[in-house]
């Protein structure tokens, strides 16, 4: 699986020559330069890069929250023109709504699925709350949850509308190490059960090696694909597996090596 040969019809997500330039009054900053990427159905792709390499920009473009300056993005063969229910996003912060309780947060994205009755929405929300092991907390207020629980609610909320793709913008950045490591197992379990496609952005190479089917290594300023590292390890993977460590140091070498971040 390489980055070229865009077979848009077969792939879940397809990026062709995508560039993004941010313009301010005084300067132009090229955040992404000619990104080509195809993500297969059911694949979990991790994008790694240093801070400011444009990985969050890449995610925002795929989510439809921002438009590329050049190139095209398709999801399931359709051009991405804005946010869509086929692509849900998990942010760095849980971004849960404090005026709603846990289950109301999870049903939030089901509001405009008119073919579902209120009871069916609740049932579906409960199914995903159960999947992230938060069933006993469905009536809890958001501020009563720990940071890890909040992100699990956010995951359930992203899963509930049955999107084909889930986008992750460093969702574990603000969690403590123990909580984060428990989350890796849970996330692999959820994706094994739901067969969703994932695009996960991080600067943590070990996280990348642990979670990804492929790891896309981005250079900084402008963000380009330096290389793509396949991770052929069986799942579920343990964060401290020596094979994971080996691939993580390989990814780190790619990230730093051959000229490194030119700054």
């Amino acid at each position: 699986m390489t980055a070229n040969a865009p077979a848009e019809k077969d792939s879940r997500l397809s990026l062709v020559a995508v560039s993004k330039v941010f313009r301010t009054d005084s300067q132009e900053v090229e955040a992404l330069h000619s990104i080509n990427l195809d993500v297969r159905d059911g694949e979990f792709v991790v994008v790694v890069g240093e801070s400011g390499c444009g990985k969050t920009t890449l995610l925002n473009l795929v989510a439809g929250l921002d438009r590329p300056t050049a190139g095209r993005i398709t999801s399931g063969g359709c051009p991405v023109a804005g946010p869509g229910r086929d692509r849900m996003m998990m942010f760095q912060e849980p971004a849960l709504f404090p005026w709603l309780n846990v289950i109301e947060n999870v049903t939030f994205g089901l509001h405009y699925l008119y073919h579902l009755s209120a009871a069916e929405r609740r049932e579906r929300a409960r199914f995903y709350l159960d999947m992230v092991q938060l069933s006993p907390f469905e009536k809890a207020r958001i501020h009563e949850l720990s940071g890890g629980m909040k992100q699990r609610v956010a995951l359930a909320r992203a899963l509930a509308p049955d999107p084909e793709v889930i986008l992750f913008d460093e969702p574990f950045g603000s969690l403590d190490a123990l909580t984060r490591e428990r989350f890796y197992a849970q996330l692999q379990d959820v994706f094994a059960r739901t067969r969703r496609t994932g695009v996960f952005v991080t600067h943590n190479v070990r996280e990348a090696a642990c979670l990804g089917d492929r790891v896309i290594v981005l250079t900084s300023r402008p963000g380009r694909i330096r290389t793509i590292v396949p991770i052929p390890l069986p799942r579920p993977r343990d964060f401290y597996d020596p094979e994971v460590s080996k691939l993580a140091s390989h990814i780190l070498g790619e990230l730093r090596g051959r000229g490194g971040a030119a700054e």
Partner: protein
Amino acid sequence: MKKRLAILLFYVLLLAAWQGVFSAGLLPKYAWPSPLMVAEKLRELAADGILWPSVKATLLRMFLGFGISALIGLTFGMLMGTNSFIYQALRSLFLGLQTLPSVAWVPISLLIFGLKDEGIYFVIIMSSVSAVAISAADGICNIPPLYLRAAQTLGTPWHAMGYRVILPAALPSLVTGIKLGWTLGWHGAVAAELIKSSIGLGFLLHMGRELNDVSQVIGIMLVTIFIGLLVDRFVFGKIEHRIRRQWGLVSS
């Protein structure tokens, strides 16, 4: 419990001091009644069927006047919250109007409306609308953009953002603004009644002064404080506390 006892003790001492000044004859009787005289006067006003209709009249004016004011204020607040030009222009205007004491709206109200009741509504609205609008606008401006992005990716159409995200997210400051607006409107209502009404708490104050009846003046002042506090603490205060507790902004 201990705190409540201390507060109770404070008020007992305050009453004793009041009575003390009266008993010592430090001030003439027509300017300084005893607590008992005030209580007796209030009982008399209640027995004559004057007190309750007046309280009701002022409260009704407030419900209608402040209701209109809250609607206008929230509408302006929402406009300001969605457009930065409107925000800057109107915020400076409302901040300016807010510095005006409620009673300063009475002369212009007399000139426009004469002695008609509409003038009282006008004063209530003008006294309170700025506070409501500013709090609503600030509440909307302080909504974390992340909520909007999250709602957007969850498939919320733009036309539904208002009531699905913006209103609930701004709710704590909306309630705070309405609570503040109520108090300012209450000031305005009593001030306007003082000058241009034949019923209401302000009118009873005015009547007390005309009759040189200091017991009535102080009694009605106490009733005004009491009702203002009651609505502030037990209606808006409860709603505010409930919302803040749900959001985790205060420990329950």
